C-alpha cells in the first residue's frame, strides 16, 4: 500500500460497494434464482426419476433445488474471494459438506427423534437419482458461467489499479524476486529476510516503482 498510495482511492470512492454494485448483485441473484428453481423443476416435472419407476414428491424437488443453491452460493462466494486462505477453503467446501451431512442426518432421525417425519428417506432417494447428479454438474455451471466470464473479461480489458497491482505481485513471485507479499499485500519482511538475506529495507524490485520504498515507520499520536 505504501508503494501505491493511490490504492486508497478505492475505499474512499466506495468503488467496491456502492449502489451500482449492489443492484448488479441483486439482478445477478435474480437470474441465478430463476435458473436454480426452474431447471430442477422442469427436469423433475415428468415424475419419472428413478430406475425402479417410483415417483418423487414436493420435498424431493425442494431438496434438490436447495442442494444446488448451496453449491452455487458457496462457489459464488469463492469466486468473489481474492485471497484463499485455509479458512476460505473451509468455508466454501466445508459448507457444502456440512449441508450434505445435515441432509443425511435429518433424513434419518424420524421416528427416533420426533421431528421431520416428512424428510424420512429423502437423502437416500435424492442421492440415488440420476437426474440429481446430472443436474449437479449442469445447474451451478449454468449459473456461474456468466459470472466467471464477466469477471475474466473485465480483468482483461478494464483492469482496475488493484487488479494490476495484484497481477504484478504474482508475476514478481513467479520471477523469483525477493519481494514477497502476504494475503494482505503487506511486505513480509521477516520471511524474505530468512529466505534471501537481503536488506529488508531496500529490496530490489521491478523498475516501474514510482518512488523508492520507504521504511515502515508508524507514528502514534502523542
Amino acid at each position, binding site marked *: 500500500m505504501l508503494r501505491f498510495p493511490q490504492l486508497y482511492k478505492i475505499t474512499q470512492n466506495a468503488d467496491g460497494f456502492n449502489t451500482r454494485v449492489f443492484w448488479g448483485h441483486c439482478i445477478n441473484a435474480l437470474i441465478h434464482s430463476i435458473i436454480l428453481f426452474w431447471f430442477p423443476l422442469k427436469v423433475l416435472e415428468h*415424475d*419419472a*426419476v428413478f430406475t425402479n419407476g417410483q415417483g418423487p414428491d414436493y420435498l424431493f424437488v425442494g431438496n434438490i433445488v436447495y442442494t444446488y443453491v448451496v453449491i452455487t452460493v458457496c462457489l459464488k462466494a469463492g469466486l468473489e474471494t481474492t485471497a484463499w486462505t485455509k479458512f476460505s477453503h473451509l468455508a466454501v467446501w466445508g459448507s457444502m459438506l456440512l449441508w450434505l451431512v445435515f441432509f443425511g442426518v435429518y433424513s434419518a432421525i424420524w421416528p427416533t427423534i420426533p421431528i421431520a417425519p416428512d424428510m424420512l428417506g429423502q437423502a437416500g432417494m435424492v442421492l440415488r437419482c440420476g437426474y440429481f447428479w446430472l443436474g449437479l454438474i449442469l445447474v451451478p455451471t449454468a449459473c456461474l458461467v456468466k459470472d466467471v466470464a464477466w469477471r475474466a473479461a473485465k480483468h482483461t480489458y478494464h483492469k482496475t489499479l488493484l487488479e494490476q497491482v495484484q497481477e504484478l505481485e504474482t508475476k514478481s513471485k513467479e520471477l523469483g524476486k525477493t519481494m514477497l507479499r502476504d494475503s494482505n499485500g503487506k511486505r513480509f519482511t521477516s520471511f524474505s529476510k530468512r529466505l534471501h538475506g537481503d536488506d529488508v529495507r531496500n529490496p530490489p524490485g521491478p523498475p516501474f516503482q514510482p518512488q523508492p520504498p520507504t521504511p515502515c515507520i508508524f507514528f502514534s499520536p502523542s
Partner: protein
Amino acid sequence: MAVNYNAKEEADGHPSGVGAPGGAGKSRKPDNTAFKQQRLPAWQPILTAGTVLPAFFIIGLIFIPIGIGIFVTSNNIREYEIDYTGTDSYSPCNKCLNVSWNSTSPCTCTINFTLDQPFETNVFMYYGLSNFYQNHRRYVKSRDDSQLNGDNSSLLNPSKECEPYSTSEGKPIAPCGAIANSMFNDTLELFRIDNETRIPITLNKKGIAWWTDKNVKFRNPSGNTNNLTALFQGTTKPVNWPKPVYMLDSETDNNGFINEDFIVWMRTAALPTFRKLYRLIERENNLQPTLQAGKYSLDITYNYPVHSFDGRKRMILSTISWMGGKNPFLGIAYITVGSICFFLGVVLLVIHHKYGNRNTSADIPN
C-alpha cells in the same frame, strides 16, 4: 512518541526497548502470529480471459455430447398415454363423468388402444391427474405421521392438523387428514386382444412405494397383524372412502396403513399435473418384449370424480432408462449450456487477443 516497529519474531508480544506506560502492565499489542497479523499463506487466483479460456472450451466440448446422449436416450424411451376423463361425448367413459364418491354401483368403462411399437424392457403403469393441487399448503399439512407410524395414542387422538378430517360420527378417522381422504381409488386393468380373446396382463402391485416409506414410516398399529380389524377398533373410515383402511387389500402385508397404493398417494406431488406409479408389468422372459405391438384394452372402474374441478385423469405406460423416464428437458439444457459456454469461450478468446497482451505495467493515474 514515535515507536520504531521492527517485525522481529516477538513471541511474547512485548515491545522491545520501550516500556509500556505504567510499568508491569501487559501490552495490548496483538500477538505476532500469522493468523492475528493477517499473514496467512493464501492463494490469489487472477482470473483473466487467458486463464479461463481453456476451461470454457472444455466445458462446452463436454456438455454438448452429454446433452446429445441424454436427449437420444430420452427419445428412445417408449411412452403411451390415454386420457380417460370422459369429457368428450364420444369417449367410452363419458357415462362415468358425473359419478360421485358414494355411488352404490361402480361405473366401468373400457378403452381400446393399439401399441404401434413393442415395449421391450419392464413397463411401468402410472395414473396421472391434472389440475389437482397436491401441493396446496393446508392440504400438505393435513396428515398425522405419528398415526401412520402405528402410534396407538395418535390412532385414537389424531393431530389438529387433520382438521376437519380428524373425526367423523364421533369417532377418530384412521387415516386422518385431507390427503388420505382424497385417495385415488380407480381400478385399472390391462388386457391384450389377440384374435378376439382378451388375455389379462399381470400387474404387480408390490414395489411401487419407497422402501423407507413401506418399512419405516408407515406401520400398522402394534398388535396381531392377522386381525387388522381389531387393531383399528374405535376408529372410522375417512369420509370419502368406500371401505375402511383395514379392507384395502386381502394380503396382510399390503393391508392397513402399509398398503402401497395408499403410501404412493400420501407422497404428495410437487406440481398440479403429476403421475404416480400404479402397477409394474414385468418382463416374463428375455425373448419376448414385455408388451408386444398390437391391440390392447383398458378396463376402468371409474370411482374417482374429477370433473367438478376440471381435473383430468390419464393412464400412462412407460419404459425406464438408466436415468429415469422420458424427459427431453435435461438433454436440451445440457446442449444449451454447453453451446453458451463455447460461445463465451470464443468471446473471451477475442477479448484476450485484443486486450490481453497490453502493457501490464502499472500506469499510475495522477
